[in-house]
């Protein structure tokens, strides 16, 4: 039962990947990246519960919180770059 949910989640993960490869705007790509980052860590969390493996769950939670922080830093850097170009 949880396997079916997992397959559905992977299908949901495929949509932003396709979107990121298709769209040429950098902010749309960032949007897809943020979606992918949270989806992958939730997937790992589900698998950790499925296998009853504590270590994978800890790694998933750390990736979840730290990956989002890194994403924010990247967004700030890209925005600064855009500001210099556009002004």
């Amino acid at each position, binding site marked *: 039962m949880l396997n079916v949910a997992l397959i559905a989640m992977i299908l949901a993960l495929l949509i932003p990947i396709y979107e990121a490869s298709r769209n040429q705007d950098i902010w749309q790509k960032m949007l897809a990246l943020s979606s992918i980052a949270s989806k992958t860590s939730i997937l790992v969390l589900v*698998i950790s519960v499925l296998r009853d493996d504590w270590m994978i769950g800890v790694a998933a939670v750390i990736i979840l919180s730290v990956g989002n922080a890194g994403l924010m*830093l990247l967004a700030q850097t890209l925005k600064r770059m855009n500001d210099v170009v556009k002004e």
Partner: protein
Amino acid sequence: MMDSYIYVMVALLPLTASMVIFQANPYHALVARGILGAIAAMVYAILGAPDVALTEALVGTMLAVMLYAIAVRSSLVMRLGVLKAAQSLPEDGNAPQPSQADSSQLDILTSQFRQILDKHHMRLELIPYADAQTLRQALIEREVHTICLDRSHTALDLHSTANHHSDSASNPPYQTLTRIQRLYEILNEEIQSPLTSLNYVEVPEATPSLTNDQPVSEEVPL
């Protein structure tokens, strides 16, 4: 033990990796690298290596992408030295007063440069200088990559090593000097503006260095 969803997840890894490879724009490639990092961390975690997954997420995705973003941002740039607008230095009375048309011409020229550099994913940084002398000095001392001179200033004392490509019959109002061979090739290939002529200047220095902020001790008359 090996469930079917693992195959699907591992198949995502070459997919996103090819996304990184076939991306021409460096900034888009950085975002694609972030996606690859997220997928890779997931695959490592479900294959039973949470330590590798953590390292991928922290170092491979966060640190490396940030460092590359800063490196790309500071290296893919052409610094163009221009003359400051004349109204900001009122003591320069003998110089011909640039009219509104002149500054708009310079705007057109820089926007053309910007279009050319955009094709190569570079950006243009304008650095204003007070007069033509400091502008040339900045080129010699490698503070800027390219300078854009008014023709009225350059007509006075142009005894440089520049090799002229523009015919003297059509006299463009601006002269662009660059000291980077590759920039000269790019600009010479694509610029078709009547506003400027383009010359390559060999900046005389013994050691060709890649760093721009290195001070040059000897004064070289251009």
